[in-house]
């Protein structure tokens, strides 16, 4: 193959002082200009800005560049930006590559300008070498089934399903229980307005039941999922029968559980020590006690009641190191409802800190805290135990430095919110990840908060992290909007930088099959070769690294490219 003559341009970004404060950008430009194949090099304050992009366009047009290196931040930030710039002036976007000289150079070497400058040059040179062999690619077109699956019929699933259905697309809603509504249906009232959740949830449930675009599967669970964004196949188990559905996108909202009580040995198993959700049922006007607050053991009205916040939250020793985020507010709400129902009652709240960081929350909390018959005690409870027909609670008031023993009739534990035991299993079926606590992991905590790392699968509600109702609704609507934006496309494009098999070389040994996280590789038993499903391939490169005969190659990350990069990296810098 005749080597085409490359005309490569290098654009070095200052990123303000993020790069230029450490890397000598002028020296980088001067040296790289002399590098074989480089016909243009320049630096600019912010290459991602409009004037910066214009500089690129001008140089590509005027110098007739055939390939472009952008030396700046991580490709996860501006690769798309600069590839778009290239495409806008007729250069194939896959002839543009990022040399990361910020996260991988200027930031870690802030105090060593000489090393940073040399390393920046080495990074750019390796990228030039890679670029010489970069192919011109066009994105893959993959089919798009415009029907969504929503897993979980709690408030998050309901919201996501209605948003998508109202956008004009079909939704399949799968709920494990016999009815919709989830934990929110168990609540007596909601903070900070004391609105009954039934008032806003039941109309939403009715809307779901009657919606022509929603098909509801109750008493059902997702059994297996295969396929990829645009065309998933899902098997739904409804009691004994299995139903198959074809869908294009998935919203995952399986919800939360409370931390099991036995994880906290300082609280004995006692009928009058209840958790937050049990107390909601006691408060709830239409349940059990018809709005009268009675304690479970003997039905007496509790005159002294102790609310214990952070029971298992912010407590790495027993429970969970994280904050469950809703307990401060729902405890305040429960205190208020209790005081309204028991006029001579005394409520104690044992707390660590009060977190009331949303609209109207602090005002609500202040109102509760200053209510008579309510005493907030700042300190951790060390033990609660039965003493005759009373309960004793040992705690400390850290503001006065005194140990306290509170005698009460009832204790309410604001137990930590945890991931449901089934969430890990569901995540495994969907091929999405969970964190160390079993919560679903988002693709990027700031920029892609409702996406999983598997495209086409979105996250909503408390399976991702403890959330209150407004945040849950917001996340569900955000996930739904991601589905709607996906469905609004005519066709689905997939990055062409995938793995591909050289069938002449492949022996069908199959070592690439288990290393693929995305389950994109299978073995064609007739031809005895590996086959890559390019729609599933995310281009991670594991298979290419594993293949013993180098039959598996990654487009634009070929072995030849890597060797060329290693050659120049070793010569120039190390």
């Amino acid at each position: 193959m005749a080597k085409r003559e490359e005309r490569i341009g290098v654009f070095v970004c200052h990123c303000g002082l993020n790069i230029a404060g450490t890397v000598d950008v002028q020296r980088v430009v001067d040296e790289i200009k002399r590098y074989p194949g480089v016909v243009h090099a320049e630096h600019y304050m912010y290459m991602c800005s409009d004037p910066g992009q214009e500089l690129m366009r001008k140089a590509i047009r005027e110098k007739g560049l055939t390939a472009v290196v952008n030396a700046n931040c991580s490709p996860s930030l501006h690769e798309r930006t600069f590839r778009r710039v290239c495409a806008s002036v007729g250069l194939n976007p896959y002839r543009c590559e990022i040399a990361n000289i910020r996260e991988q150079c200027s930031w870690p070497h802030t105090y060593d300008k000489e090393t940073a400058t040399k390393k920046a040059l080495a990074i750019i040179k390796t990228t030039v070498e890679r670029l010489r062999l970069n192919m011109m690619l066009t994105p893959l077109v993959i089919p798009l089934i415009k029907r969504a699956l929503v897993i979980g019929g709690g408030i998050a699933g309901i919201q996501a399903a209605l948003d998508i259905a109202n956008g004009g697309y079909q939704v399949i809603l799968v709920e494990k229980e016999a009815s919709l509504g989830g934990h929110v249906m168990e609540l007596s009232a909601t903070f900070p307005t004391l609105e009954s959740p039934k008032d806003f949830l039941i109309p939403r449930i009715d809307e779901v039941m009657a919606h022509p675009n929603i098909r509801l599967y109750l008493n059902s669970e997702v059994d297996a999922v295969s396929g990829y964004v645009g065309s998933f196949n899902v098997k739904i188990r409804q009691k004994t029968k299995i139903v198959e559905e074809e869908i294009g996108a998935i919203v995952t909202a399986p919800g939360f559980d409370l931390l099991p009580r036995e994880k906290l040995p300082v609280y004995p198993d006692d009928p009058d020590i209840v958790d937050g959700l049990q107390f909601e049922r006691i408060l709830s006007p239409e349940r059990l006690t018809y709005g009268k607050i009675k304690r479970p053991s003997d039905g007496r009205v509790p005159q002294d009641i102790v609310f214990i916040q952070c029971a298992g939250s912010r407590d790495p020793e027993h429970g969970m190191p994280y904050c469950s985020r809703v307990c401060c507010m729902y405890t305040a709400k429960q205190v208020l409802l209790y005081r309204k129902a028991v006029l001579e009652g005394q409520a104690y709240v044992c707390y660590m800190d009060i977190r009331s960081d949303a609209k109207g929350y602090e005002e609500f909390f202040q109102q509760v805290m200053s209510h008579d018959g309510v005493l907030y005690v700042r300190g951790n409870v060390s033990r609660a135990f039965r003493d005759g027909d009373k309960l004793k609670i040992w705690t400390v008031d850290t503001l006065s430095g005194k140990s306290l023993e509170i005698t009460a009739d009832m204790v309410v534990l604001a137990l930590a919110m945890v991931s449901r035991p089934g969430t890990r299993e569901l995540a495994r079926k969907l091929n999405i990840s969970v964190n160390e606590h079993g919560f679903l992991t988002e693709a990027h905590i700031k920029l892609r908060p409702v996406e999983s790392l598997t495209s086409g699968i979105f996250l909503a509600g408390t399976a991702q992290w403890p959330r209150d109702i407004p945040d849950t609704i917001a996340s569900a609507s955000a996930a739904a909007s991601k589905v709607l934006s996906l469905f609004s496309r005519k066709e689905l494009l997939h990055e062409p930088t995938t793995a591909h098999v050289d069938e002449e070389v492949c022996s069908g040994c199959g070592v690439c099959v288990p290393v693929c996280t995305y389950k994109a590789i299978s073995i064609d038993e007739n031809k005895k070769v590996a086959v890559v499903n390019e729609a599933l391939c995310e281009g991670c490169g594991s298979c290419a690294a594993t293949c013993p005969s180098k039959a598996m190659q990654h487009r634009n990350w070929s072995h030849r490219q890597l060797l060329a990069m290693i050659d120049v990296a070793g010569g120039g810098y190390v």
Partner: protein
Amino acid sequence: MDLAYYPGCTLKTRAKNFETSALAAMSALGINLVELPRWNCCGTVYSLAEDDLIHHVAAVRNLIRVKEQGKNKVVTLCAFCYNTLKRANLVMKDSPDKRYAINIFMDEEPDYYGEVETAHLLQVLRDDVGWEKIAGRVKHPLKDLKIVGYYGCTLLRPQSVAIDSVERPTILQDLLKALGGTAVDFPFATECCGAFQIVNNRDIITERTAAILGSAAKSGAEALAVSCPLCEYNLRQTQSSTKQPQSGVPVMPALYFTQLMALAFGLDLAVCGFEENSPETRAWLKNKGLIS
């Protein structure tokens, strides 16, 4: 089986009954507690001062004595000795700087790196002997005997040396059950008895032990099983000083768990040394038909 045994000072003076009952009960289980030929005070209280390394020297010296015997494990009875030795050993194991300073200072001794495992006898019973074997050795089950396991502080705190769950330990109750008794839970099981405050502030001891005894009585217990000579002493002192009926403090024997083992195993009562417990102990045991 022979196990290296570190007695500590109290077991040779005020808590002889703890030692005699333990040696006899263990030999009934086929384990010889072999006292170290040379030992010194453990240092009594583990010093928390960051730079107070001299206080660990006594404990470390004892651990070196164990190593000299060719042993890698030492058993203690006294909960305080257990705590001090175990924590000093952790320093030698995990803090290279302190280990270096202590080793340099003790230039007459071989260097020590925390190799010796420090165990409390309760751990040996649970982990090496097992409750089943203990239950199998019982001749006179302690039936109809409601006893609380009272742990105090030093077997369980800090967590790094705890022999069981810090907040809800069961090891003493498990032993009591193996001996055929009824183990009663009570909320004060891991509360401090006041410890050395007995020396300069008796009121603290009176208040603490009265609360402990009161709670034990409320839970329906008739006696306490203890493993710390200082707890035993404090509980006994309070009872003798508050015997007036108006004080409301129940009179309740505090027995070493090894005494209960010896009783249940049907050993010679001389090894129990009940005369060193509170004066009411013998009468109560007689009343319960455990001694004649």
